């Protein structure tokens, strides 16, 4: 199957569109934001439902606690900010007041990873998937484009329990179908192949598709899966793909330590030991720069996925 796109959009705008939908369709959804309304694309939600929006100011810890309190009162809080401030900065608040307390809070964060670009490493969190997936009961989702982020936003409102939804700032190709149903924990099989499995999440899914096309020119057929949900991991889909290909490359805009690849390796080592290569940031911080330049420098693009795929195949 050939993937094409007509427009590029930012995933955070998909979140904003999902929130706009929820402002009309779910009166229990409330939104909180720590002084980043424009960056989170919350304008439409606030315009439609001003009474269901809570501005917390630059006080993320308080925002998480208030969200837990709103959840107790029967609402479905979407706590929003940048990924660095919504996870690492408030880890203990999420751990105690949300995860351990079992509260129905949705932590929705933009500007995850390197692709926020010029602001540099203080804001480029590459550890958030790891932090969140370690919390018992936390669902972790990293959608790949505008349409999927919108669908995921709508889907998590229907799910009872804590969720971390991660998205970003750059415009990326919109290639998933509009109004595709989003199923938490259900991987999407994008390309059929038998030589190497590529498991990608977030912005790296489009890069994985590009990589598969390059590999095909070399006569290599990649089996590509969109792992939008890192936890719970769709182990059945992964196992089905591995049994065809016998090797795997994981790709994510995150530290290799603690990311999707880690989860995959942990599962495979116990169930079907498999040659694996990792596309991710290798134990370093990011830096300022243009998003595409950063992805190139840190090895997070189609070229890197191709290279790791060839290596995985030779190691089989």
């Amino acid at each position, binding site marked *: 199957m050939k993937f094409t796109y007509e427009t590029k959009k930012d995933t955070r705008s998909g979140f904003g569109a999902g929130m706009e939908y929820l402002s009309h369709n779910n009166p229990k959804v409330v939104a909180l934001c720590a002084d980043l309304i424009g960056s989170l694309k919350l304008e439409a939600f606030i315009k439609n439902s001003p009474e269901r929006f809570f501005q917390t100011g630059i*006080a993320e810890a308080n925002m998480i*606690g*208030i969200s*837990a309190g709103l959840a*107790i009162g*029967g609402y479905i809080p979407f706590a929003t900010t940048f990924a660095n401030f919504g996870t690492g900065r408030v880890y203990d608040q999420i751990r*105690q*007041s949300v995860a351990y*307390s079992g509260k129905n809070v949705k932590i929705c964060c933009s500007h995850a990873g390197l692709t926020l670009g010029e602001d540099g490493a203080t804001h480029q969190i590459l550890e958030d998937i790891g932090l969140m997936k370690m919390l018992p009961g936390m669902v972790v989702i990293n959608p790949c484009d505008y349409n999927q982020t919108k669908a995921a936003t709508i889907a998590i409102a229907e799910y009872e329990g804590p969720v971390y939804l991660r998205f970003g700032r750059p415009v990326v190709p919109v290639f998933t179908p509009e109004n595709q149903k989003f199923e938490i924990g259900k991987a999407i099989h994008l390309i059929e192949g038998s030589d190497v499995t590529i498991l990608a999440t977030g912005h790296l899914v489009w890069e994985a598709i590009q990589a598969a096309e390059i590999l095909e020119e070399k006569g290599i057929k990649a089996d590509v899966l969109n792992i939008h949900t890192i936890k719970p991991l769709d182990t059945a889909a992964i196992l089905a793909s591995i049994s065809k290909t016998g090797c795997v490359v994981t790709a994510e805009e995150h530290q290799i330590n603690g990311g999707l690849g880690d989860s995959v390796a942990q599962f495979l080592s116990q169930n079907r030991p498999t040659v694996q290569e990792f596309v991710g940031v290798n134990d370093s911080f990011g830096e300022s720069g243009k998003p595409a330049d950063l992805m190139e420098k840190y090895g997070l693009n189609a070229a890197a996925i191709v290279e790791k795929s060839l290596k995985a195949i030779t190691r089989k």
Partner: protein
Amino acid sequence: MQTQELKNVASQVRRDILRQVHACQSGHPGGSLGCTDLLVELYFNSMKLAQDANGKVVFNMSGANEDIFYLSNGHISPLLYSVLARRGYFPVKELGTFRQLNSRLQGHPTPHEHLEGIRIASGSLGQGLSVAIGTAQAKKLSNDPSTVFCLMGDGEQNEGQVWEAAMYAPHHQVDNLIAFIDENGQQIDGPTEKVMSNRDLEAKYKAFGWNVLRMDGNDMDEVVATLAKAKSLLGKGSPIMILMKTEMGAGVDFMMGSHKWHGVAPNDQQLADALAQLNETLGDY
């Protein structure tokens, strides 16, 4: 409930606290004894709680249309457990499982084990006021006229999140909230004035926009009167803060006046000496 009856309940609750902590030889008796009068007053007098047709309390996580209490300084859990059990949320004999393996009465309170009466985990300090504000705002959004209460420690005022919440509540006119600070002047490493001075909490909270009251938290008559006054100030645009002077270890003479009993369990002889000072009004578990 009459003040004398509240005092009788408080005496039993203090016995429960000491016996829980003694049985597992761990926990925090000092602050628990100091805040006993407040929690007894709230749960047996001021708070409007959901009840069934027979007048027995019933627990709903949402707390819709009933008053809600949050304990932010979760280490005084033996007090909260005793008050909840004595009020009828769970069997009093379950107090005997405090801090033991497979118990719902964890060292610090949590809803994780589905203990009736507990809505949020606390223990890592500084988080409860934010949660209370969130629930208070949920009540406003639902046109629920009931009140949210929250107790913090004075040592807990060291935590930055408390001040984020202190700034937020007046800004958003969260005026269905009554918070308390237990000013016992002690924290683990010594007197609060030496470890990290709070200086003038009344001036600080007033400057943030709170309506601030003071009371002697170990004088039941004054606790009843101050709660009544605080409730008369609800719905007037400002959250309410009650600064409550207490004595750590209140009710047991040799536990008072020092931070020594913050987190230390009494031995057999000390338990006997302490219980001799407290009437068994409702029957030990």
